[in-house]
């Protein structure tokens, strides 16, 4: 018998469309993060899962892999992109022609009415494949006018393509900018293909940087929203990214997304093979905090594949392979009506929540003495803003910071992320999970087994299974209060000082 699990959507129930992908009640700073945006920008981003923390609980996005070619090399990228079991940018399973992509988008939009955004992000650079990218956008602008289009680029050929881009239903562009110093650039991008030649080293990086900055300015001038993605590479651009943040902000970028370098030897990237390490969770979070003084930061990015489908953090791509969409017959006009209904329901739900949250602002930890130190906690959840996942089933944890100032969402950490090619289960996975929780002093989940309980305690992390089905913020505040009462929070612990 299949038990009904809270947090899973029931087919056809009116509320089933309001499924929340990640699971935070407020994701911390939704309103403050967005509140300073001018009204016209806020209108554009409020339903975009990749730009609005709140929207990513409700709306889904998809990427279509129509753009295989690339015009630069990045040391964190491997141009062989056919792995089905990995989730990271640049990886796809099936390359699509523009016609196939349009068919897939229509099929997904009909099946997942919450899908509001179609992005082209690769697996190469969309603007290095202008014919394929723009043909896809052109068809979708006509056939599915209720879908927002966006594009992600390295920026090398952006200035030349801005005019064409502005012809479609595109109001967001993401540029990956890892540096504004060509000496640093040469350590990340060994060459660019520019005016029919391969240009290497500092000279190539200089061209890339100039084009990116020019492209950013041109887009801002035309009122297109620009988000900047940066890959944090320890020892290369870690000291430099706060400067990047300042410069792109001054030029009008509206959001900065600093992502950790993903680098494993089995990915076959230059950095992977050379043993360039990625940042640990603390390094990432510290840099994000440092940049946040200057810039609106994004913390809920899931670094998804160039063919991802669904809510952030989930991938339903396997339901929409070419052979499957071939058999689907979609009446898009009917689908559009259904989509509009679903969107209206979501908006009504969000408006209700917004009202409720007004009564919710009181800080549950405000009565504690302000010298109690802050604590990071990891929460296992499947959605709906409550603690509802077994420790052993969690593929990612949401990280919260509790302090006398309140409960704040910090980010998420994935565990067991990559296909390592062997059946390395059990002990190995547990060790990896515990490593991924570095810096956290408690784990809150609905249930936890005896063995992992012991291992967590050995690692100095307090396991807690007492808040099953409680709202996350309440659970985090409750555990913090217990830690305070037991005297954990008065003196800075050595754990905190560990690298």
């Amino acid at each position, binding site marked *: 018998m299949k038990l009904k699990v809270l947090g899973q959507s029931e087919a056809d129930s009116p509320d089933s469309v309001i499924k929340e992908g990640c699971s935070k009640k407020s994701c911390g700073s939704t309103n403050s993060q967005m509140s300073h945006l001018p009204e016209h920008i806020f209108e554009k981003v409020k339903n975009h899962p990749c730009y609005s923390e709140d929207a990513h609980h409700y709306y889904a996005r998809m990427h279509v892999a129509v753009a*295989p*070619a*690339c*015009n630069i*090399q990045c040391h964190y990228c491997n*141009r*062989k*992109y056919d792995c089905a079991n990995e989730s990271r940018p640049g990886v796809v399973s099936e*390359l699509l022609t523009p016609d196939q992509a349009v068919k897939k988008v229509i099929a997904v939009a009909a099946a997942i009415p919450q899908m509001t955004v179609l992005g082209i992000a690769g697996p*190469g650079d969309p603007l*290095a*494949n202008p*014919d394929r990218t723009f043909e896809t956008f052109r068809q979708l602008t006509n056939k599915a006018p209720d879908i927002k289009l966006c594009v992600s680029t390295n920026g090398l050929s952006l200035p030349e393509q801005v005019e064409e881009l502005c012809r479609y239903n595109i109001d967001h562009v993401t540029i990956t900018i890892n540096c504004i110093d060509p000496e640093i650039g040469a350590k990340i991008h*060994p*060459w660019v*293909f520019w005016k*029919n*030649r*391969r240009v*290497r*080293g500092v000279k190539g990086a200089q061209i890339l940087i100039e084009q990116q900055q020019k492209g950013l300015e041109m887009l801002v001038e035309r009122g297109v929203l620009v988000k900047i993605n940066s890959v944090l*590479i*320890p*020892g*290369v651009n870690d000291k430099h990214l706060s400067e990047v943040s300042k410069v792109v902000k001054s030029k009008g970028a509206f959001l900065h997304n600093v992502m950790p370098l993903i680098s494993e030897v089995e990915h076959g990237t*230059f*950095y992977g093979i*050379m*043993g*360039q*390490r990625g940042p640990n969770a603390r390094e990432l979070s510290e840099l994000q905090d440092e940049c946040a003084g200057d810039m609106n930061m994004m913390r809920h990015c899931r670094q998804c594949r160039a063919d991802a489908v669904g809510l952030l953090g989930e991938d339903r791509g396997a339901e929409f392979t070419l052979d499957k969409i071939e058999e689907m017959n979609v009446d898009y006009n009917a689908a559009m009506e259904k989509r509009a209904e679903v969107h209206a329901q979501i908006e009504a739900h969000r408006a209700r929540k917004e009202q409720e949250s007004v009564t919710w602002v009181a800080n549950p930890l405000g009565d504690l003495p302000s010298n109690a130190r802050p604590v990071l906690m990891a929460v296992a959840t499947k959605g709906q803003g409550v603690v509802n996942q077994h420790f052993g089933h969690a593929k990612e944890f949401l990280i919260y910071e509790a302090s006398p100032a309140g409960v704040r969402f910090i980010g998420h950490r994935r565990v067991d992320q990559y296909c390592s090619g062997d059946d390395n289960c059990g002990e190995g996975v547990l060790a990896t999970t515990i490593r991924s929780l570095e810096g956290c002093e408690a784990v809150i989940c609905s249930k936890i087994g005896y063995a992992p309980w012991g291992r967590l305690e050995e690692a100095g992390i307090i396991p807690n299974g007492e808040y099953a089905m409680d709202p996350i913020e309440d659970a985090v505040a409750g555990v913090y209060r217990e830690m305070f009462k037991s005297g954990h929070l008065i003196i800075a612990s050595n754990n905190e000082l560990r690298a």
Partner: protein
Amino acid sequence: MAFSINDSCVNCWACLPLCPSHAIEANSGGATRFKIDPRKCTECDGDYADPQCSSICPIEGAILNSAGEALNPPGSLTGISPECFEKARIEIQERAR
């Protein structure tokens, strides 16, 4: 006079749209990698100073000249020659400490 593509090709498509002679064929119809039609390839003579396919190819050793030599030999794209590889690896690991 023609270039060729060997098995290390990763089918990334970068070369195909650049070829002025439309000599490059995609890996369709059961072929596992891209091919250059030797009857059409001009090595970009008269069109560009640098041959286009080998100037954008991201894989060292994947495109060969008519003598069978790699147009992008080992180390030419990473900027690290095979002799310096170990030294570079140590430097890269050191800088992130």
